[in-house]
């Protein structure tokens, strides 16, 4: 098991954004998280990628314990372990968050060289391969501001992949894109799934979720309401809240 999260709770001020979330992700699995706005999907990903600290619960990634709860309080691992765990995960943001002052090439190379201490030439070779895979071989010298949203997102995915994460998280990777550009990102994710990349994807693209997911999780109000195979959830769920949520998408 690559990721194990148990009884995650997260409060902002006094509001319980994550009530009690448990989640398992196996190696090579593609898990898609769906749910209404404000249900805590982003917060969950942010807790798993150390951008937020949980209030209680237990998270284990790639066999390393990130946080556990002792006497009702969340206790995090030492900073060395936390750094190692960070290197096992990648996160793709809704709005890309590329480094605007770095060229495309440098965006992909910089962390390899400065975080992983990889040799510069090796890092460049890895970046070139990724760019080729993303169909952006000729854009290495461009700056992010010169690229379309879809191209920027493909660079952001390359930047994450360059560090060889064990598990890749996506938080609505196509939401900031024009509809005609979402296809190119979904294609990239589909290819990654075919290469057995372990992924956790938050998305509102239901057709895509149905197609790419090994398992779908429906979240509402900080709780996992239901999870199962795409057939189980999209086909014939008996859960009333899931039904109502999916209804909104089939209406469109």
């Amino acid at each position: 098991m690559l990721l194990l999260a148990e009884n995650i709770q997260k409060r902002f001020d006094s509001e319980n954004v994550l009530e009690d979330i448990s989640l398992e992700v196996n190696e090579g699995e593609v898990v898609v998280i769906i749910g209404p706005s404000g249900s805590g999907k982003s917060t969950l990903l942010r807790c798993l990628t150390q951008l937020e600290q949980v209030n209680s619960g237990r998270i284990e990634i790639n066999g390393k314990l990130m946080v556990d709860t002792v006497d009702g309080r969340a206790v995090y691992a030492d900073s060395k372990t936390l750094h190692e765990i960070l290197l096992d995960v990648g996160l793709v943001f809704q709005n890309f968050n590329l480094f605007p002052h770095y060229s495309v090439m440098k965006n992909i190379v910089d962390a390899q060289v400065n975080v992983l201490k990889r040799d510069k030439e090796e890092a460049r070779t890895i970046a070139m391969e990724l760019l080729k895979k993303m169909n952006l071989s000729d854009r290495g010298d461009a700056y992010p501001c010169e690229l379309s949203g879809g191209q920027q997102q493909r660079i952001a995915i390359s930047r994450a992949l360059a560090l060889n994460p064990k598990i890749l998280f996506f938080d609505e990777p196509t939401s900031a894109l024009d509809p005609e550009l979402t296809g190119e990102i979904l294609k990239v994710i589909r290819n990654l799934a075919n290469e057995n990349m372990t992924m956790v994807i938050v998305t509102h693209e239901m057709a895509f979720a149905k197609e790419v997911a090994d398992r779908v999780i429906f979240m509402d109000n900080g709780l996992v309401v239901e999870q199962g195979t795409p057939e189980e959830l999209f086909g014939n769920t008996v859960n009333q809240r899931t039904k109502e949520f999916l209804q909104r998408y089939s209406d469109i």
Partner: protein
Amino acid sequence: MRIDNVPIDLLLKNMLSATGTVLLIFFLTAILSIPLGFVVALARRSRFKIISIPTRIYQLIFRGTPLMLQLFFFMYGPFYIFGIGFGRFNACIIAFVINYAAYFGEIFRGGIAAIPKGQYEAAKVLGYSKFQTFMRIILPQVVKHVMPATGNEFMTLVKDTSLAQVISVAEIYNVATNAGARYFSTVPLIVAGIFYLVMNTVVEMAFKLIEKKLDYYRT
């Protein structure tokens, strides 16, 4: 040669040597107050109130009172308090540096605040340390962001050097008023104006050049 009874070559000779003083004040202030301004900006952003609040009070005092008074304070204050002073030129530099660090602190604070949170988050998840994130990701973007305001501040600094005359530092304005009084003429003041204008033209062009160099990307 004389214009309006003023011996121009003598005036220019004195002005040029005074220009040396002005440039010295300018460069010393710039070199010292910019790093100090960064420290001030970071102190202002500190989550420890014991650091951020005194820093804010310091900025309020030095941005909220005339530089002229601050020059007097650093010139004569130490005499009253400790019975020993810094010396005329040192007092002048200390006042300028502390004053400008307060302004730069405010400019840099704004520049750092303008960098989107997503930049820190992307860097963190990629495994950059806090120090690497600041030096490699945040600072370069801050530099671009603060460049126009910094250029503005530098042009003000050139003109503010004229205030050093209140503690009798022999800078351009000081030389001009002395010559003006001796020869009953406004010519020295006009020449002084031209000197400031020439210096600021250089500053302005330098900053335009830097801004153009940083124009290779947009945020």
